[in-house]
């Protein structure tokens, strides 16, 4: 591992040369930031990973079942397992998707499940990301560069090769492809994850496009190449969010979407990865119900645990939240990317009173969670010293005919010693994630 540490600066330099950057909008201004790489890997041993893998597969399979049910028969609502209000008031529930069935019945092809390890060594799921989870490209390229700079490290340790992500992704696209080429639809170079879009296109052989060179005619979708030739598109791995996907169905103001794309999808003429409407399943309010879903659909206990969560919507939970306010973290279900997260203890007396009023008025809008005592990971600080920092793990789970877990993941850490928020959109860094083969 010393080899890796020695080459840390070179790797960061190379990452910046390859454009491994993260775009951030702050105060209306677009800034590109490097996504700092830390050379000390997170190491997960074989047995631990096997257990995680089982839990992740179970979770993603159930979330796919749930999406098919919610946009189909709605049995879980009829049976009263989840209050209907939670489903229909979720921002991610998209009425146009009701009764629309995606290719081969798969809704979440690429799922990013965020986990943390607590000091008791247990893993907890913090969040499911089933819309457009990003981040796989960072460990991919970091591993590639490390293998080049310190090949001996990868010979001496039994580390599972993680360079197969692109193959897994291509298999998923091919599996649902309705006949035609695969494309990656990016909003363009000002998107935070543009590096990733271009990198994944290169690695999977899919065509990288923005909405401008795609046209939808009579419910079929075509890519127009440099010579003006039209090529039929069979699968769109879209990296733009639902609301901007098609101005004729969703946000009319969208300039990056493709008019009538949703109709082509609805009629089965093109596959969209991930399916539109998935936001209802990764809603922070729905998260609470995932263990119940697992019981409901599979009759099994949840292998992975949720962070202990309370829904102020329920009177009993509201009382608990008010009684234990200072020990809890409160999250606004409509926000993402680490925004809308409030630590009860951090509020001044006035702000706390205001917030409690808001909570009482809009109980459905918030969830409250126990603060998990993270198992910290070491990083190297500016002086080259090892210091402990909060870190999470985004595991990538891919679904075609089968559900598979990529034996790696994106480990993000907070550079600020006091912060629990590790989101890359808030300026954190990342590490490689080693899964050992035994």
């Amino acid at each position: 591992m010393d080899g890796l540490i020695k080459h840390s600066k070179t790797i960061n330099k190379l990452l910046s040369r390859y454009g491994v950057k993260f775009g951030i909008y702050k105060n209306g201004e677009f800034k590109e930031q490097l996504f700092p790489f830390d050379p000390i890997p997170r190491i997960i041993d074989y047995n631990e990973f096997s257990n995680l893998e089982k839990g992740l597969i179970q979770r993603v399979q159930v979330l796919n079942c749930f999406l098919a049910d919610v946009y189909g028969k709605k049995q879980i609502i009829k049976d009263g397992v989840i209050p209907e209000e939670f489903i229909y008031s979720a921002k991610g529930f998209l009425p146009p998707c009701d009764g629309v069935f995606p290719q081969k019945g798969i809704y979440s092809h690429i799922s990013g499940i965020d986990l943390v390890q607590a000091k008791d060594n247990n893993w907890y799921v913090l969040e499911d990301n089933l819309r457009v989870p990003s981040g796989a490209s960072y460990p991919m390229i970091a591993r590639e560069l490390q293998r080049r700079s310190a090949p001996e490290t990868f010979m001496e340790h039994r580390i599972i090769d993680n360079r197969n992500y692109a193959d897994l992704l291509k298999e998923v696209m091919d599996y649902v492809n309705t006949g035609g080429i695969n494309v990656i639809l990016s909003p363009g170079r000002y998107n935070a994850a543009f590096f990733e879009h271009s990198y994944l296109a290169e690695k999977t052989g899919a065509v990288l496009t923005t909405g401008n060179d795609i046209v939808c005619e009579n419910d079929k979708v075509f890519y127009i190449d440099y010579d003006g030739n039209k090529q039929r598109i069979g699968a769109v791995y879209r990296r733009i969010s639902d609301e901007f996907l098609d101005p004729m169905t969703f946000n009319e103001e969208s300039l990056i979407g493709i008019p009538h794309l949703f109709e082509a999808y609805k009629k089965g003429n093109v596959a969209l990865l991930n399916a539109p409407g998935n936001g209802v399943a990764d809603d922070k309010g729905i998260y609470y119900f995932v263990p119940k879903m697992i019981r409901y659909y599979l009759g099994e206990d949840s292998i992975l645990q949720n962070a202990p969560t309370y829904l102020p919507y329920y009177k009993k939970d509201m009382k608990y939240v008010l009684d234990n306010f200072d020990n809890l973290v409160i999250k606004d279900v409509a926000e993402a990317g680490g925004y809308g997260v409030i630590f009860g203890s951090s509020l001044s007396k006035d702000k706390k009173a205001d917030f409690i009023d808001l909570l009482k008025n809009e109980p459905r809008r918030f969830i409250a969670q126990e603060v998990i005592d993270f198992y910290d990971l070491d990083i190297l600080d500016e002086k080259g010293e090892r210091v402990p920092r909060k870190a999470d793990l985004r595991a990538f789970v891919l679904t075609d005919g089968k559900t598979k877990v990529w034996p790696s993941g994106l480990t993000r850490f907070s550079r600020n010693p006091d912060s629990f928020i590790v989101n890359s959109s808030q300026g954190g860094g990342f590490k490689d994630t080693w899964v050992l083969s035994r």
Partner: protein
Amino acid sequence: MIFIRNLKFCYTLNAEYSGDITHHNFSFMFSPHDTNRQRIENLNIEIADCPKLNITRDNFKNKRYYGLIDKPHNKFSIKVTGNALTGLDIYEEYTSEPVEYSLLKVQTSLTLPGLKLREYHNGMELDKLENDYEKALHIMHTIYYTFKYASGATVVHSSAEEALRLGMGVCQDYAHIMLSVLRMENIPCRYVVGMMLGEGASHAWAEVLCNGYWYGFDPTNNKLVNDEYIRVSAGRDSSDCSVIRGNFYGLANQRQKEIVSVEDISN
């Protein structure tokens, strides 16, 4: 159902552009269909210069026509004509499962109440009323007598809360305010776009599910929807029922005009 009226309707939408536009994608929804209350005959939809028209239905069973006009043009027009036979029944029986209308109990961004709407709702003292029908009726009366009709005060994307703060608006705002109050009462309701005898533009009102029957309430006119109304489309709020959506390439200003005429030709 006994039909007593034959309403001849004509809807036209004319758009003019200050310069040529190309790659014009559009999606159009103004296609009345049969319900228990109305029968549509001789329906004809003409969309100028569109080589191929595609049809889809949304999850509220509304029919949408859409297409792409690639060649340069500076005009675009749509004409919908037909007859609607209407009768005296003012309600429609509801038979599907409750889960099908759950969505209609939830506020949307356009109906979400703020402080003003909550006060407005409290002031109505609806808990004193016996059933959902009585409540809907009272809500309609209250809005009619406290809200002022004024065109140009609100815009297409104004929410119910914004309109109520202004105290004035158009039929869309009347309908949104009514939906917002109904949803605070947990009563399923939907936004309806339609036409009304003798009006110059399309109209909007609210449909409310009361004790197993859908009733149309028109808060703009303080009337129950009857044989003078033709129902065209429905959704959670006006954004689900937008008549036309479109985008195109070209630097051009757009002027759009909508004319609706409904004439009683019953003998």
